[in-house]
């Protein structure tokens, strides 16, 4: 018996009235885990029942602990008829299985019903006793930590990065089972919610097993997705990066991280730079230096076009033997799954040198080749045996293989920032995968798995073809040499491929930072901007949007038609991106995400990325328009007008984003080689149009400007679209990445939000242009709305703007956006470049010292100052842990405080029993009875330090209504549902003892409506990492809290 799960039902509040006659409720609770159910007593006639139950104990296998959620059902007792369900709470107990995560779940959780939404709250306590020792632990995958965060989580350091893990499980969708015809919508929704919970748990456990096999202890960048395939079933799949993480336990290294400046930089570097074991970076600027003495930055490049949907064949029959994963046998059932796990051993994993991480320990990412992507169109067929998901497996293997071949072509050996997605419409499914080809350092890799040297020698083919030629050594020397030489600010930009064997048209120049290596003219990537990268000016969100009509079709014909459209779609998106990038005077894209959504009569393409000016890359030329019929004078005028507009826009943008003020470039870069030519070029490219070409030619031999030929209406439209992107209003910046270059001094004010819009195409016969316009306006208007709504936060930056498009019905376009608005301190923002950054860093460190001492005073035995600790004093560790313990208790206090306040409030509520005198001094709402939980799609919280990861939050909800009008129409319905989802996420995080969710994302928002029937249904899947953070200002406030409160609560809350 490996584990004992214990649950206690304390109380309920704000319950709905279930008995109309008495306006009260006779509530009781069923607690179910696996097949065991316990019940509390009925608490009669109250909307605020106090059950105070015994501890319900479940003795279970740890496999079940991982797979099953604890299911709590609140019911209204009815003597004469069936008991009415009020609602349910599903509790994922996974965080309790890991010793480093949460220890108890305790707090008010919303009671949720799929038809009525939140109906009151229930206070529960849940604990797990694992009997196993360490050995036992290792045999199950309990204890493997999961993180949605796509970088090494703060307060951990990566000892080893093992590599790619993936898994998928399939099942029949309960919504499509025959039984659905006879059961209530509620029952059906609940079956679905429960099933997905189970499948997620199973998936996580299986992935955990793989990680164990690889010798890791954590999955970072865990990305789980659902494919609602309708009739053919339900697929839950996940990918991630297996790592061995080690908790950073010494106080100094964490404490000295200034939280003021861009946190990812500061947190990561001490961790990796100083403490990472293994080969020291020979080139390696010692850590303090890395704090950006090198401000130049050089890129490598490029976008691989060849990647696009080359896969047009329809594999209606599963191809087995693709890679090695498909080799699975035909045995059914769990045996099969086991087999699959085994065959996909560590060896096979190496076949996919993929990493879901988007930012890396410094020194890990050596070179970036460019974006690689692959798509394929498939026809869905019924999954006959849920235990044999090999069809889906094979599909993904194909795609991954294709990605791999692209990577090789780019002279790289790994993919970073890797992700997979699908779009489904009826029986057609587009599978997409994309990432960034890269060369990684072997430092964090297991011997033999992804060791750079090793790999290169094993695969000489890649490099030898080019190796003999001029720069022939680049390949191999790169592998070793780069690591030593490449300066961190520009090294990743240097091309990894052979100059004479470029896989796509590109223009190479010497790096503008180090002048030693070649860089491409433009670089596209799916990763975050490396913190050490040298950037000029600020970045901005760049989007390419595209709609293409297609004929309605069925089966293979339809799939083929879609396949044929895809390359054009991607090409146009790429062109748009390129144009918009140049229009902003920038030369690189980060966080590129291309989404293609398929509908019955159209395809939608949305590419989002953050444009920046990498100092290492050449300045982009302007955009020149060339007309085809120069004879016509009015036409010429028209063209020159447009040209002028474009040039003006470029000039404006450069100013707006601080792109390349020449003196800054020089000073900061400290570039040894002055480049007057570059500068003049910069100036000219936006000053005049006619002689631009010749001048540029002089400066650079090859084409520098991007020539747009206006040869048809499409091109005119394209140019028009270029110029209609409305500029961000003053005080606002936007990006879809974690960090905004050029802004560092964030304040602690953040506002996460989700916005959804659905547009109905009223005119059935829209042209491509018309559709494009609608789609573009839809996205632009959304952004405008954000700017308006968040105007009180300015100056601020909308970070991690994540757009998701869908075509829920024939004539509907849905756009969902989740992002966070973070305000920053303007004065310091104006201070340019690294200097400002450094200053804040120093200041922050200073502040931190003070806090540290202050906190240590709480512990009687630690009287010494910081110096002692940083000198790795033997007791430092103890102190640290007790310090953290303190904070944890404080977190508990907050929660417990809420309970107290609440109960007093209840007594005071105008119920009949409230006869007594109501003068109570403790009744003050400013006491804040509900703990604030911050949410952010980023991996950090500005101005704060994450001190503990409590576990992954992965929640799936369905909401349905049959009284749409009464709930305020579709907007009212969805508005309250999203608010409810937020509330449930916050409540569960608070119950884990946390005060924030980082790396939050809404991965699914499927909305269906039937206004005629007054019905609507929505499915939402959200995920993130629950954490405890401490804010500088809070550090003081909380430590002042009376000790008595702390002890009290800990007794009350955890004593049992």
């Amino acid at each position, binding site marked *: 018996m490996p584990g004992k799960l214990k649950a206690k039902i304390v109380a309920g509040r704000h319950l709905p009235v279930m008995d109309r006659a008495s306006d009260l409720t006779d509530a009781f609770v069923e607690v179910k885990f696996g097949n065991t159910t316990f019940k509390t007593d009925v608490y009669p006639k109250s909307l605020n029942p106090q059950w105070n139950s015994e501890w319900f104990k479940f003795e279970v296998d740890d496999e079940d602990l991982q797979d099953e959620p604890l299911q709590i059902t609140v019911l209204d007792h009815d003597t004469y008829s069936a008991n009415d369900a009020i609602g349910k709470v599903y509790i994922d107990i996974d965080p309790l299985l890991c010793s480093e995560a949460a220890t108890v779940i305790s707090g008010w959780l919303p009671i949720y019903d799929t038809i009525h939404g939140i109906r009151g709250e229930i206070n529960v306590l849940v604990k797990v006793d694992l009997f196993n020792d360490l050995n036992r632990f290792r045999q199950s995958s309990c204890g493997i930590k999961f993180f949605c965060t796509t970088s090494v989580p703060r307060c951990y350091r990566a000892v080893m990065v093992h590599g790619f893990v993936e898994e998928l499980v399939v099942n029949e969708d309960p919504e499509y089972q025959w039984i659905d015809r006879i059961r209530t919508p509620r029952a059906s929704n609940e079956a679905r919610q429960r099933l997905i919970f189970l499948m997620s748990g199973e998936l996580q456990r299986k992935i955990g097993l793989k990680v164990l096999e690889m010798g890791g202890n954590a999955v970072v960048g865990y990305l789980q997705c659902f494919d609602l395939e309708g009739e053919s079933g339900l697929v839950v799949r996940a990918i991630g990066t297996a790592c061995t993480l080690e908790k950073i336990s010494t106080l100094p290294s964490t404490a000295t991280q200034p939280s003021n400046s861009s946190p990812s930089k500061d947190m990561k570097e001490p961790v990796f730079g100083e403490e990472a074991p293994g080969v020291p970076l020979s080139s390696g600027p010692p850590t303090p230096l890395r704090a950006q003495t090198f401000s130049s930055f050089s890129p490598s490049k490029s976008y691989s076009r060849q990647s696009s949907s080359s896969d047009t064949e329809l594999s209606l029959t599963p191809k087995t033997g693709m890679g090695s994963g498909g080799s699975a046998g035909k045995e059914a059932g769990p045996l099969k799954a086991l087999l699959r796990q085994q065959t996909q051993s560590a060896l096979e994993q190496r076949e996919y040198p993929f990493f879901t991480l988007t930012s890396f320990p410094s020194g890990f990412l050596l070179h970036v080749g460019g974006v690689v992507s692959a798509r394929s169109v498939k026809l869905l067929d019924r999954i006959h045996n849920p235990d044999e998901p090999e069809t889906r497996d094979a599909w993904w293997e194909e795609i991954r293989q294709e990605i791999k071949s692209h990577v090789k072509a780019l002279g790289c050996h790994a993919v970073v920032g890797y992700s997979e997605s699908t779009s489904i419409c009826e029986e057609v499914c587009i599978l997409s995968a994309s990432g960034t080809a890269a060369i990684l350092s072997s430092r964090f890799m297991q011997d033999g798995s992804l060791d750079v040297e090793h790999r290169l020698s094993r695969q000489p083919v890649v490099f030898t073809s080019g190796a003999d030629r001029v720069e022939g050594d680049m390949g191999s020397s790169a592998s070793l040499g780069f690591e030593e030489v490449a300066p961190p600010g520009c090294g990743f930009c240097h091309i990894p491929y052979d100059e004479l064997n470029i896989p796509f048209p590109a223009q190479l120049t010497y790096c503008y930072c180090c002048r030693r290596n070649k860089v491409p003219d433009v670089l596209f990537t799916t990763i975050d901007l490396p913190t050490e990268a040298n950037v000029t000016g600020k970045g901005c969100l760049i989007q390419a949007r595209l709609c293409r009509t297609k004929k309605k079709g069925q089966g293979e014909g339809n799939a083929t038609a879609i396949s044929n459209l895809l390359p054009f779609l991607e090409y146009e998106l790429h062109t748009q991106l390129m144009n918009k990038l140049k229009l902003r005077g920038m030369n690189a894209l980060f966080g590129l995400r291309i989404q293609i959504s398929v509908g019955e009569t159209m395809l939608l393409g949305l590419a989002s990325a953050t444009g920046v000016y990498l100092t290492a890359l050449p300045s982009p030329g302007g955009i020149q328009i060339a007309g085809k019929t120069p004879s016509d004078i009015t036409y010429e005028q028209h063209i020159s007008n447009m040209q002028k507009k474009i040039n003006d826009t470029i000039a404006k943008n450069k100013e707006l984003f601080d792109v390349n003020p020449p003196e800054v470039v020089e000073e900061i870069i400290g570039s040894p080689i002055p480049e007057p030519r570059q500068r003049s070029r910069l100036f000219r490219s936006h000053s005049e149009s006619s002689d631009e070409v010749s001048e540029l030619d002089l400066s650079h031999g090859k084409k520098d400007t991007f020539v747009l030929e206006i040869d048809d209406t499409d091109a005119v439209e394209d140019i028009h679209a270029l110029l209609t992107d409305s500029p961000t209003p003053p005080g606002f910046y936007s990006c879809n990445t974690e960090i905004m270059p050029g802004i560092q001094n964030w304040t602690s004010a953040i*506002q996460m939000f989700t916005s*959804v819009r659905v547009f*109905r195409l009223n005119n059935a016969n829209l042209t491509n242009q018309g559709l494009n316009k609608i789609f573009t306006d839809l996205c632009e208007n959304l952004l405008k709305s954000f700017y308006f709504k968040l105007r009180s936060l300015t100056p601020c930056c909308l970070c991690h703007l994540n757009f998701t498009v869908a075509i829920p019905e024939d004539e509907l376009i849905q756009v969902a956006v989740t992002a966070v608005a973070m305000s920053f301190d303007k004065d310091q923002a104006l201070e340019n470049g690294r200097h400002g950054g450094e200053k804040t860093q120093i200041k922050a460190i200073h502040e931190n010292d003070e806090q540290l001492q202050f906190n240590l005073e709480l512990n009687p035995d630690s009287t010494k100052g910081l110096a002692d600790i940083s000198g790795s004093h033997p007791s430092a560790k103890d102190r640290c842990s007790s310090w953290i313990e303190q904070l944890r208790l404080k977190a508990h206090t907050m929660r417990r405080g809420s309970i107290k306040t609440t109960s007093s409030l209840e007594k005071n509520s105008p119920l009949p029993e409230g006869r007594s005198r109501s003068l109570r001094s403790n009744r003050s709402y400013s006491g804040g*009875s509900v703990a604030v939980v911050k949410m952010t799609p980023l991996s950090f919280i500005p101005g704060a330090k994450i001190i503990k990861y409590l576990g992954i939050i992965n929640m799936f909800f369905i909401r349905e209504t049959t009284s749409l009008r009464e709930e*305020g129409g579709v*907007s009212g319905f969805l508005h309250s549902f999203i608010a409810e989802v937020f509330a449930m996420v916050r409540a569960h995080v608070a119950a884990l003892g946390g005060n924030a969710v980082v790396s939050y994302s809404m991965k699914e928002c499927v909305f269906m409506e039937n206004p005629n029937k007054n019905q609507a249904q929505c499915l939402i899947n959200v995920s993130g990492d629950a954490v405890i953070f401490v804010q500088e200002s809070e550090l003081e406030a909380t430590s002042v809290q009376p000790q008595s409160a702390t002890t009290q609560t800990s007794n009350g809350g955890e004593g049992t």
Partner: protein
Amino acid sequence: SVELDVFVGNTTIMDKEVYQLWLNGYTVNDAVKVRIDGGIMEECEASVEVLLSDTMDQYRTFQMCERLLHHPTKLANQLLFQIPPDRQAMLIERYYAFDDAFAREVLGKKLSKGTKKDLDDVSAKTNITLKSCRRQFDNFKRVFKVVEELKGPLVENIRQHFLLPDQLARDYAAVVFFANNRFETGKKKLQYLTFQDFALCAGQLINNWTLGAVDNMMEDMDVDLDKEFLQDLKELKILITDKDLLDQHKSLVCTALRGKTNVFTEMEANFKNLSRGLVNIAAKLINAKDVRDFFIDLVEKFIEPCRSDRWTSIDVNLYLTHYTNSAHILDTFKHHSVWTRYMGVIKSCILRMYHE
């Protein structure tokens, strides 16, 4: 056309200006117009669509919050909306704020369905939207229902149950007190009085004439007048029924006033009338019916005569001060504490109600 449009923040975003428009009962379209007229479009480079979308979103949010606002204490421990405490306070305060003009119309009326039906008249008269009138009326009713049954100080009860700032709680106390005692305020002669005039009087009555005023640990309510006190007031009749006492009182007051006012002659001439008026009011208060007429009586029996003789407020103050004090010097007058308790309130009320 945009069919669905929502924006949900982890911290609920609420614009004070839009909230006020919502409270004022504007439709979404009217609210957008008001915002446009306020110049927000130029200020923020926003378009009409953006404004419309934002206004709709906020209106929806407010509607969802409204049921919580009905029980303000719930707002602090609900989980659905994450609202910073200062915002919560703002929401509550503004939701419960009311227009004096509206309150003046409803003051002293029974807070019943019948009254609610007549709100369209009130709306037309006060130029406050019907929607807003209904909200204000429902607030009155809700507060009334909750505190009606509670023991203890009225203002404090209101403040604690509805988390209102002190002044607003006092105003509600006045509304509740008036509704409970059904004071007549609608007569033509009373039309010149504002809500704040009445609110001050209500405060005086609550603080001095209710049972809670004497002993706030008593198991009785603040909303009703102290019956015992009303009974005692009958004893004051001796001041006018005993001829000697009346004359003595008059001469004391006149001696004190001589030479200090321009209207001495009128004061002297009217003394008996005025004194009879005030004492009669006191003596009748034991009857609920006469309690209702308290304010009209004050106006008819005291304020109007003074006004017709062109007394200034200073004159009134002077007169009432001496009138009150002189009674204590009277040999045979024994009811000093009742007299003080009665006249203190009367003086404050009259002074407030005396508009020159």
